[in-house]
């Protein structure tokens, strides 16, 4: 696998197409989720990743099948970028038996064991040490695989985040921590929550190299992640990436909420001007792009049709899986 440091310049046309496809695909899936949501066919609270796709896509583009990805309830992008099943994700949101969690997880807990997407958690920050546990297992087994774990700026306020950083650094665990800093925890801005915004400095005191990407540039994210991943594969310890980003929709649910008063549409506009989906779309040849876009639409319709036509879980499923055999 290519783990070399790469920027847009060193990427070839196929790379750009692949990254564009992944970005566009996630964007369109989330838009479709939002579109369908008011029909009540989705039986699960949705925390959309619209606007934040470049972080998952940029990091995961450099991961292989054996690498592990962990995320939060706002984890659709990471799940999809890692190659987990779209039909199973939609079916999960529909509460169907064919869902990736057999209808027992919902939108906030997507899992894909075969693709090494560890289950997402909806208690903020709780998946961070669990990801470290996976990294510990990889290290004990002398694997060259690594873990990438995504979380929001709220999660870094939890004590368990610092406990995890310390342990990961102490044991040189192969885990890349990625903070998707969208500036809000629900409706509360950073200014009301952080004593200082020097997050990377805080993390660095644990002996963890920490980098910040302020403009959401997918190539910068990919390039920095690539450096961290290469270091970890070579036996180095954890890395930390803080990516500033913006959540275009409301915290939970399908809509925009710029009329609520806690943020301004003008803040969004800066990010729309810098939208990585559009940016990469512009870098792909028109015919190829049209082809990609069509394929994405077909895949999405097929996935929603699959979810629609899938069976509901049998009542006995309420009681199965409380304990493992």
């Amino acid at each position, binding site marked *: 696998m290519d783990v070399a440091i790469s920027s847009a310049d060193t990427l070839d046309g196929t790379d750009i197409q692949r990254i564009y496809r992944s970005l566009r695909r996630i964007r369109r899936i989330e838009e479709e989720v939002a579109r369908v949501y008011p029909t009540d066919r989705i039986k699960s609270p949705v925390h959309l990743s619209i606007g934040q796709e470049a972080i998952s896509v940029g990091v995961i583009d450099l991961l292989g099948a054996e690498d592990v990805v962990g995320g939060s309830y706002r984890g659709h992008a990471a799940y999809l970028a890692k190659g987990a099943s779209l039909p199973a994700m939609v079916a999960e949101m529909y509460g169907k038996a064919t*869902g*990736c*969690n*057999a*209808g*027992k*997880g919902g939108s906030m*807990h997507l*899992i894909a*064991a075969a693709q090494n997407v*560890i*289950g997402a*958690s909806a*208690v903020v920050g*709780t*998946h*961070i*040490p*669990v*990801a*470290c*546990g*996976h*990294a*510990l*297992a*990889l290290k*004990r087994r002398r694997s060259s695989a690594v873990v990438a774990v995504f979380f929001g700026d709220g999660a870094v306020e939890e*004590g*368990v985040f610092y*406990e*995890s950083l*310390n*342990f990961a650094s*102490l044991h040189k665990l192969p885990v890349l921590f990625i903070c998707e800093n969208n500036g809000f925890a629900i409706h509360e801005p950073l200014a009301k929550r952080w004593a200082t915004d020097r997050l990377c400095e805080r993390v660095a005191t644990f002996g963890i190299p920490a980098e910040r990407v302020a403009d959401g540039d997918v190539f910068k994210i990919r390039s920095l992640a690539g450096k961290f991943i290469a270091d970890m594969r070579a036996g180095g310890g954890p890395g930390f990436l803080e990516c500033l980003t913006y959540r275009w929709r409301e915290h939970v649910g399908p809509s925009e909420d710029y009329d609520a008063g806690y943020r301004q549409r003008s803040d969004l506009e800066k990010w729309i001007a810098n939208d990585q989906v559009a940016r990469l779309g512009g870098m792909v040849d028109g015919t190829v792009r049209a082809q990609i876009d069509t394929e994405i639409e077909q895949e999405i319709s097929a996935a929603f049709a699959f979810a629609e036509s899938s069976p509901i879980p049998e009542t006995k499923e309420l009681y*199965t*899986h*409380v*304990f*493992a*055999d």
Partner: protein
Amino acid sequence: MSLPTDGVRPLKYVDALREAVEQEMERDPDVFLFGLDVDDHKAIQGSTQGLLAKFGAERVFTTPLSEDAMTGVAIGAAMAGMRPIHVHIRNDFLMLCMNQLVNIAAKAHYMYGGSVKVPMVVRSMIGKSWGQGAQHSQALHSMFMHVPGLKVVAPSNAHDAKGCMITAVRDNNPVIFVEHRLLYSTESAVPEEPYTVEFGRARLCSRGDDVTVVAVSNMVIECLRAQELLSEIGIHAEVIDPISLVPLDIETIHASAMRTRRLVVVDNAWTCCGASAEIVARVLEMAGPRAGIEVRRMGFETTTCPPSPWLEAHFYPNPSTVAKTIHSMVRGTDAEWEPDPDRVRLAYQVQFNGPF
């Protein structure tokens, strides 16, 4: 339950725990043991002694004082196929692990649709006496019983400690393993070979027709002494050790209570929303209104555990209070009876003089 008879010798509870872990670590390279101070010279009162030397620092290691994250690490490692044993020197400290245990460990197999398992053991010790006081004496097992997805075991003797530990390590679920500090020095006949003690199967410790006594953890010892004293005056108590609280062998308890028509549950914990409340409620639900089963719960007094021995003496159930309670149930409250004060004293309590 597999019970070899070869190589049986008296062994202390603490050594039985250590031996079980040693044998499981030998058998399965995925088993590892970690937790605060498991590798220091005190070795969790000896229960982890020698394991570092034998298995090395990759498989036996201390942790930062980060119980929350370390529980998450255990869960992640377990999901990835390893079998962690996470050790805490006091049950009280599990409150720091509650978020991970309740919100992830207990839920993962279910919430992830059966695609992951969390085979981990959480060891912790309940303290008692020599000034353990408010924060080193709690027994919070009922909090874990409340949540589906966690198994809870509280072996009362060395034999069951070893067998339960082996069962716990091999179990594919999170197991909350409740130990009692005062039991560490108690001996019983323990086979050398590895063996398992099945969860969900209560042990009948003594037979009797007058009253059913369900005793949890160290209360088994206390209740067996009460049973001896009562038998001398013609009251015969059937003492049952559930061994595991989740799963709970309610059938055995129910069957006994249907016969004796009297049920006393003695827990080494508070009674409010406790294991004793659960056991009594389930037996009465199964028995129905016409069974006429008289019930009593005994446990910690509804107050905080004091360090002063003169206050602490009144905090716990003991052979005397248990025997007197049973006596009044069987013979009536008017019948005065006081067991011999010298004979209600238990060796494991008298011998323990701290500090920890």
